[in-house]
């Protein structure tokens, strides 16, 4: 019983780490551009496909595949931002939302045309041995360890980056007050591009990690994790980096436990119900700051 709970906890943290990495991208983009980037989930899918192609068609080693997919998604993120979102900088936020949905449809259907609709099996690419503890009573997959480790490294790196570097400072300034930041001589456009680049690069990592744990790869692979990560970002307080990490890991643990102990069919319903309850108690999310309206 104890071992089972522990296994579920580790699986939950592993899934949650993937959500957290995706949610970081959501929350950073929201913080700076004040837009819900619904295409973010599909960048995950693109990242996973790039890694898959690099390894199985080009015969590259796995680590090169991951690097290639990070580079590919970063470039994709910058291009999408330039072409689709930049012209809408001063448009109503709903127009930007619909554009993001358009980009999401575009990426999904482009992937469908290029890669076909049949699911690709990702597991053949990277296989790692599992870890056995307590004489085999507790088995932890190497994927879970790798995912949690990656999440921690990314969290620490991002916190250092936004806290210590000049670019990070510019990002925080832009999300605080874009106009004032511009008056201080910060190049707002390149700062926003930078955020999209980081967010998309993280999405590529998340895509590879997710497909290691759930190895079927389809053009729609990214959409549900995208929605869950968005939920995680809101749960933690959208715009807050530690909030995204906390929200993601909590969501993953809740989902795995709901699947194990309640019902696989309504696990998602439980996840969303928890979100609603938390938002009713803390309307700005767990770590979000409530904003008072001024007359």
């Amino acid at each position, binding site marked *: 019983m104890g071992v089972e709970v522990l296994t579920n906890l580790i699986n939950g943290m592993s899934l949650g780490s993937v959500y957290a990495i995706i949610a970081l991208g959501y929350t950073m983009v*929201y913080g700076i551009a*004040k837009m*819900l980037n*619904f295409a973010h989930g599909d960048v995950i899918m693109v990242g996973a496909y790039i890694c898959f192609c690099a390894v199985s068609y080009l015969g590259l080693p796995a680590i090169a595949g991951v690097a290639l997919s990070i580079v590919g998604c970063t470039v994709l993120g910058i291009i999408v931002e330039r*072409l*689709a979102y930049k*012209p*809408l900088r*001063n*448009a*109503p*936020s*709903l*127009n*930007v*939302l*619909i*554009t993001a*949905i*358009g*980009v999401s*449809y*575009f990426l*999904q*259907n*482009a992937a*469908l*045309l290029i890669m076909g609709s049949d699911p690709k099996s990702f597991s053949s690419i990277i296989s790692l041995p599992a870890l056995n503890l307590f004489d085999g009573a507790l088995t932890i997959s190497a994927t879970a360890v790798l995912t949690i480790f990656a999440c921690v490294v990314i969290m620490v790196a991002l916190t250092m980056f936004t806290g210590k570097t000049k670019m990070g400072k510019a990002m925080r300034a832009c999300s605080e007050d874009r106009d004032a930041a511009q008056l201080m001589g910060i190049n707002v456009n390149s700062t926003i591009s930078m955020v999209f680049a980081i967010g998309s690069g993280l999405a590529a990592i998340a895509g590879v990690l997710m497909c290691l744990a759930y190895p079927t790869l389809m053009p729609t692979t990214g*959409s549900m994790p995208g*929605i869950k990560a*968005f*939920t995680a970002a*809101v749960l933690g307080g*959208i715009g807050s980096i530690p909030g995204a990490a906390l929200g993601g890991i909590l969501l993953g643990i809740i989902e795995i436990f709901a699947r194990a102990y309640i*019902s696989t*069919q*309504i696990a*998602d*319903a439980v996840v*969303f*119900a928890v*979100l*609603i309850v938390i*938002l*009713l108690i803390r*309307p*700005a*999310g767990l770590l979000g700051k409530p904003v008072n*309206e001024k*007359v």
Partner: protein
Amino acid sequence: MGIKSLKPQTRSTIITYAIVVIAFLAVTVLDGAGLISNSLSGQLVPICAYVSLAVSLNLVVGVSGELSLGHAGFMSVGAFTGVVAAGCLARFGVENELLLFVGAAVVGAIAAGVIGFLVGIPVMRLRGDYLAIVTLAFGEIIKNLLNIFYVGVDDAGLHFSMTDSASLGMNQGVILINGPKGAVGIDKISTFALGILLVLITVAVVLNLMHSRDGRAIMAVRDNRIAAESVGINTTKYRLMAFTVASALAGAAGVLYAMNYSTIVPSQFDFNQSILILVYVVLGGMGNISGSIISAAFLTVLPEVLRPINNYRMLIYAVVLILVMVVPHTKIYQRAADAVRRRFGKGEADDAADEVLATEGGEAHE
């Protein structure tokens, strides 16, 4: 007395109804002449359903200014309760198809309205993007719960279960809703005429609400919540009113949609479906009812028209969507629009009005 001498509000109302009636007549005439392809005539009822859904969502998103991402949830509540209602009525000897449909639509609308009201109470405590994510969450919860819902009817009455169809304990009954397999064996009683009737009712409800004292209160809350509050408007009440009415109308549209197919499954009514309806509303223009009607009809037909280039049609759909949103904000378009305006001497007043509208739309959703 010409149409120009009418009040602008009356004029736009007349135009809105005229669009629907003319579309109905045109399609009927063309259909009679055999000019409508099979694939398109199969789309007529779904078009009506989507038009109703877009108009009702416009009440929430455009008129009341709240971003709702769970409209398909209320559609599915209406669809499934409507199917159950029609199944029961048929079981107990009602054979008239019109009566069956009206019964199903009324039950579906009431059920969706009640769920909308219950969901609205917690949702309306929140604002902006937080409200949006909670409506999304409710939509997903409704979909998940419908997935484990089993309903059957026999001579003793209705049977419910949340485990499987065997535990319904029926005696020679009919299974109406079969969990993830959805509602099966639906009587296909939706017709284009019924669809147009539902569109007209939906438009009438929404326009009358918009032009009433309550409607003005709803729009006042959208434009400036604090100012509205300070003149004594109960903001929660009016936001909840718009949300509940829109949910009920979505329920009725769901019944229309469901009764056009022999099978519907809960996973059809997912987040993507909600987004699809939202796209119609934004493309048609916030708070603009005739805009919603036209864009819903156009965007439902577009993938059908593109069917010959099957593989690329959704790609083109996506590109059209992005271009429609992005192009009006590009410098080239704005310069061209300015040139056209100067050439044809359109007054400065129109420009100013456009700008006011644009900023209003922007503020309402921040």
